């Protein structure tokens, strides 16, 4: 606790850096995955290839990937862009399968009805397919978010600031409180991101989460009515 009190500024700075490293890969990964998932879902023969190749990407060990990034990208060695791009690759690797599954989860009858009503292909995608894949996409996004927040700690290996610094520094200097602070702070970020995603889901997909209040109301209404009568 002592350690934390005297290093609050450092921890806060690292938390912000960590968030800054994690958010872009989550968002970009999500946006990139949807068109790829759409192609995989639309052109069935391509599905297997796309999913396997991208799935393999996730198994590329992270340290070499981080280290090779500057060589691939021509970016400066210590640039956070290296970490962001590497994390985006992992995010896409995780997310594409979910995107394809999400789009495939939309009921064929619903799509057919949408076409019969006179949605054009484009309108049908934006107003029917995408929203209806929402619940599956959201579940995938939550996994990507947790994975990205955790992987971002590795940025420290190539000298990019993140909460990972607290692990390495605390370990080298043998300060357990510093290591524990790093772990807890990372977990807190992951949990807050998850809660935010769930909240966004509630707002954007009101039709998918059976409204607890309304269900509760339905359960209690007969009792109330009965009570009122007696």
């Amino acid at each position, binding site marked *: 606790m002592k350690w934390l009190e005297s290093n609050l500024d450092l921890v806060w700075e690292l938390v912000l850096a960590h968030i800054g490293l994690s958010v872009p890969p989550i968002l970009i990964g999500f946006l990139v995955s949807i068109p790829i998932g759409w192609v995989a879902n639309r052109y069935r023969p391509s599905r297997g290839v796309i999913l396997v190749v991208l799935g393999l990407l996730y198994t590329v060990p992270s340290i070499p990937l981080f280290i090779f990034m500057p060589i691939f990208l021509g970016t400066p060695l210590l640039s956070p862009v290296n970490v962001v791009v590497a994390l985006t690759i992992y995010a896409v690797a995780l997310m594409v399968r979910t995107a394809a599954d999400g789009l495939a989860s939309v009921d064929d009858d619903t799509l057919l009805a949408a076409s019969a009503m*006179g949605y054009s292909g484009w309108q049908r995608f934006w107003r*029917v397919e995408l929203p209806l894949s929402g619940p599956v996409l959201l579940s995938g996004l939550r996994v990507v978010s947790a994975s990205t927040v955790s992987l971002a700690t590795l940025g420290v290996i190539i000298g990019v600031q993140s909460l990972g610094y607290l692990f390495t520094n605390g370990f080298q200097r043998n300060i357990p409180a510093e290591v524990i602070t790093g772990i807890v702070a990372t977990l807190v970020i992951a949990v807050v991101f998850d809660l935010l995603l769930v909240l966004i889901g509630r707002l954007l997909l009101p039709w998918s989460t059976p409204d607890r209040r309304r269900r509760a109301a339905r359960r209690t209404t007969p009792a109330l009515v009965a009570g009122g009568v007696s």
Partner: protein
Amino acid sequence: MIEFRSVTKRFPDGTVAVDSFDLVIPPRKTTVLVGSSGCGKTTLLRMINRMIDPTSGSIIIDGEDTAGLEPVKLRRRIGYVMQNSGLLPHRKVIDNVATVPILNGTPKREAREHALGLLDTVGLDRSLADKYPRQLSGGQQQRVGVARGLAADPNILLMDEPFGAVDPIVRAELQQETIRLQEGLGKTVVFVTHDIDEAFLLGHQVVILQKGGHIAQAGSPAEILAAPANDFVASFVGADKGKRALRIQRVGDRDVVVDENGTPTGVLQP
């Protein structure tokens, strides 16, 4: 008026679902396509709004060849009601009904106002407007489906086994409702079913189909019952087993009509 002119549909896998089909569907009447599973009913229906394009032949609506029309625009002026309602699960009832007019450019408020009126038309309580489809019973969903089909005030309403999945009592209600709506609004209804009783109840013109969309017989229910064209038709409508054979029994000074089992079904009016 909808006209099929030697329409053939061959699917990419080689299945010939419909084989040189000719039919005239009169305006402001109900035409029922009836036949057993796989005889091509759905394929025929979907060729009218170009959900499926014929391999050869043409479909003419009010003198216009549909091949020359833009499919999306064509669909917006033809109502379509399907089994299991096909409602959009993420849109409220009211928005499901208002969708087509909005796609057509009607201002949102006006479309929703009109949609509320349509809920009345199909016998639904307005309090359902803000519910999601999954919060409705099957019969209610089907009514919403009908309201949605009517929303853009189309001349033509296509209905593909719309009441196939609801219980017999609700089904009977919906059938009566359909008759009332068709008469009241003067729509051209093309209705698909495999239930001959439903076909006779709803159809001004009944078209009995065999595999490949071959017409076994087309005519009014009375014409078909009076003179089944062949053994297939006779058996399909149940005439061969005496199911449709009613007899008159004199009881006192009244004529009582009895069915093949001798069970009274009604009294002849003088």
